[in-house]
């Protein structure tokens, strides 16, 4: 690892689908606990933005973004660019997707470590109704920032094995993956994992790691490897379901939340081979814990109806609201307002201090012309000045809650309130901004910001 891991953070969407609901609706399957579900206005890009924002303190500009997902919002267009824009990084630097398979997670981590920059691991996991992927999957994101400085963990060893075998696959356009008989995958994975882990531990000179994370889309392979390579400290894995590319990131974040300096971590990602990494926590970890620990992100979810989940994922074609769909965002104006639309940057009048979102050239207060400086508000808290619940508006999940938000230090905008029910919003309610997808029309995702109750 050429660059040091400096900070990390995770993101878990607020909604939870209780597995008992699956059994109730489908007559079989189900199980205990619940999985995390990205809201209808979230995707791998928006969740990635939230993890990345949490991982970076304001003003830090990583030179590269390596974005890994199995659920890219776009093909043939880089998704990491929206993350780059949302982080207000200007036009400098590199942004790339590792989109398609779970192993992209390791690719993003190793790429960001090599070049310096941000690894963003974000995923939505879906499957056919009643499938194990639906039941056992989860949606989440994690981000890791590499750069010059004191590392929070040191990499003691990195090894890999690779094999071509038919365990999971999905052809482009399909929404669910195919899987071979489970026992076959378990047999195929076992030697690949053993080889990578054995070599990694030997190279690191570690006999029993303090913490072990085994992440794989193959549940049986995970169970076997976890049994074989037990850590000294039992893992407190976030119980939100297997989160694809985000899974190793989320679980590494959970370990980093509580690891002590000097302790070792074995991170095993088994996907079409195996990547084993041995890490050792350094004293800097004590000063670089994520702003919100994973345990806090996992707790306090909102229960979701199975029918709503199916609707959000496009698996239940419900009657739409009787309103015209909004127009798709147009390319040229979206580029002209890139820093506004993606990074919530307004303008502040140099003459009188009035804040304008979106930016204006003529001050609404003192009418000064073209005397504006940037006013970046994406991290600015605000309060609700007035609000409404729009039961007529077009939305995949009505009703839409709208609030007029006054930002601390100036600026006002009317924003949809995400992840809330009408009784949670009133005049004076404190809110903060979240990057979301307002709607998708004509194949174009309309990314913008919403308010969430703080």
């Amino acid at each position, binding site marked *: 690892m050429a660059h040091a891991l400096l900070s990390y953070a995770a993101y878990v969407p607020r909604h939870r689908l209780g597995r008992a609901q699956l059994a109730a609706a489908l007559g079989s399957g189900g199980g205990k606990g619940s999985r995390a579900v990205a809201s209808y206005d979230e995707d791998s890009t928006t969740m990635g933005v939230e993890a990345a924002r949490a991982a970076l303190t304001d003003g830090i500009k990583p030179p590269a973004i390596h974005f890994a997902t199995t659920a890219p919002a776009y093909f043939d267009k880089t998704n990491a660019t929206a993350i780059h824009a949302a982080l207000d990084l200007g036009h400098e630097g590199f942004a790339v997707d590792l989109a398609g398979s779970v192993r992209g997670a390791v690719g993003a981590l190793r790429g960001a470590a090599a070049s310096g920059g941000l690894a963003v691991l974000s995923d939505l996991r879906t499957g056919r109704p009643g499938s194990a992927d639906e039941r056992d999957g989860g949606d989440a994101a994690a981000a890791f920032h590499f750069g010059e400085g004191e590392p929070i963990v040191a990499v003691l060893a990195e090894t890999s094995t690779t094999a071509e075998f038919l365990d999971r696959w999905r052809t482009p356009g399909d929404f669910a993956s195919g899987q071979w008989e489970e026992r076959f995958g378990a047999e195929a994975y076992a030697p690949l994992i053993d080889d990578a882990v054995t070599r990694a531990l030997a190279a690191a000179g570690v006999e029993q790691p303090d913490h072990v994370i085994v992440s794989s889309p193959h549940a049986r392979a995970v169970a076997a490897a976890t049994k074989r390579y037990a850590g000294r400290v039992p893992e407190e894995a976030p119980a939100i379901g297997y989160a694809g590319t985000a899974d190793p990131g989320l679980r590494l974040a959970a370990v980093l939340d509580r690891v002590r300096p000097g302790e070792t971590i074995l991170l095993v990602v088994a996907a079409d081979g195996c990547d084993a990494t041995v890490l050792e926590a350094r004293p800097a970890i004590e000063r670089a814990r994520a702003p919100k620990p994973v345990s806090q992100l996992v707790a306090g979810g909102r229960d979701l109806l199975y029918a709503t989940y199916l609707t959000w994922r496009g698996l239940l074609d419900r009657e739409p609201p009787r309103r015209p769909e909004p127009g798709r965002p147009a390319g040229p104006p979206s580029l002209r307002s890139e820093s506004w639309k993606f990074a919530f940057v307004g303008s502040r009048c140099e003459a009188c201090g009035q804040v304008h979102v979106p930016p204006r050239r003529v001050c609404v207060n003192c009418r000064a012309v073209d005397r504006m400086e940037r006013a970046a508000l994406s991290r600015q808290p605000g309060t609700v000045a*007035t609000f409404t619940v729009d039961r*007529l508006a077009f939305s995949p999940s009505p009703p839409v809650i709208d609030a007029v938000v006054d930002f601390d230090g100036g600026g006002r905008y009317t924003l949809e309130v995400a992840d809330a029910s009408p009784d949670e919003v009133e005049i004076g309610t404190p809110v903060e901004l979240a990057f979301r997808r307002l709607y998708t029309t004509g194949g174009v995702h309309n990314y913008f910001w919403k308010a969430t109750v703080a």
Partner: protein
Amino acid sequence: MASNGIKDRVAIVGMGCTTFGEHWNRGADDLLVDAVEQCFAATPALPKEEVDAYWLGTMNSGQSGTVLSKPLGIDYKPVTRVENMCATGSEAFRNACYAVAAGAYDRVMAVGVEKLKDTGYSGLVRSNVAGDGTAPEETLTAPAAFSLLDPAYCRKYGVDPRAMRDAMTHVAWKNHVNGAKNERAQFRKEVPKEKIDAGAGRVAGRLGVMDCSGVSDGAACALIVRAEDAYRYTDRPIFVKALSVIAGPASGPIDPGYDYTTFHEAVASAKDAYAQAGITDPRREISLAEVHDCFTPTELVLMEDMGFSERGQAWRDELEGAFDLGGRLPVNPDGGLKSFGHPVGASGLRMLFECWLQFRGEAGERQLDDPRLGLTHNLGGRPGTCVSFISIVGARQG
């Protein structure tokens, strides 16, 4: 800023207005012919051939002057199409009046039309300009935008939300009572307050369907001539005292200084219009007001913006019946947007049509006793970002 006005320089000598409603069997062309022919039939002294120029207002039912010249078969005359959102009909009237006052023409017609019910949707359908997808209007509907007034008003003036809701209900109830007396209105039934209350909250915020104006098709028109010529065409013309249209910086939605309990544009247009007309005490001098009751809280706020109520008191005045047909200042005696309906481009002229009938003593069951001055108010846009139009008309010069 000079706003000299054209007080008593032009007069309306004929008007027409279709019934407003869901005219499944009539297109915009039919509605235009209906309103215009009705007007000419009632004004035999001013035949179509003598009209020098036309102004057509429509928000969304077509573009250019041909929207009017084609169905009417106008013989190569000036036709101007104007648009100013929900104040479109008023804007057509204003520009037509100015043309006569300027001396450019002697006899002109202002026409407004809207065909809303061909879209397949129950509410207004916007035609959005291509944008970056961040404008709240992209998703926030009109009733939702106006419902923002309700909690803000209650909070600012400490009004019990229940009392505010009662006042909103009274606005809807009153305007339906009035509309029930109007053969041209879209909804001609009184609605019990309990029924209005029962539907509250089903559309946006605390607004129900009964808090929203009627979405309808319709057309209306006015013949305008020089004031000195007015009596050549009718024995009972009405005279234009003031015309004001105001657009602000549309800063409400981005300026924390705006508190969602007023329309600054409406206040400014009222001030301008009162100055043009020489009105100093609108509460006493205005005999009737047709205001833009697009949603019930809008009418309440407008009562304060027009100076008909003290700040924070409109809800109380409304509940006390001040603006009922028999109240101290009848507001929306024809039923308003609420029950007459709101075919956008026609609404401003429809408001003038009620003044026309009232001043001529032709308002039937709604007839007021000796009205002197009438005010029409049109709002185009949303709280914090709108245009406001006001006209003041009177039965007499001077």
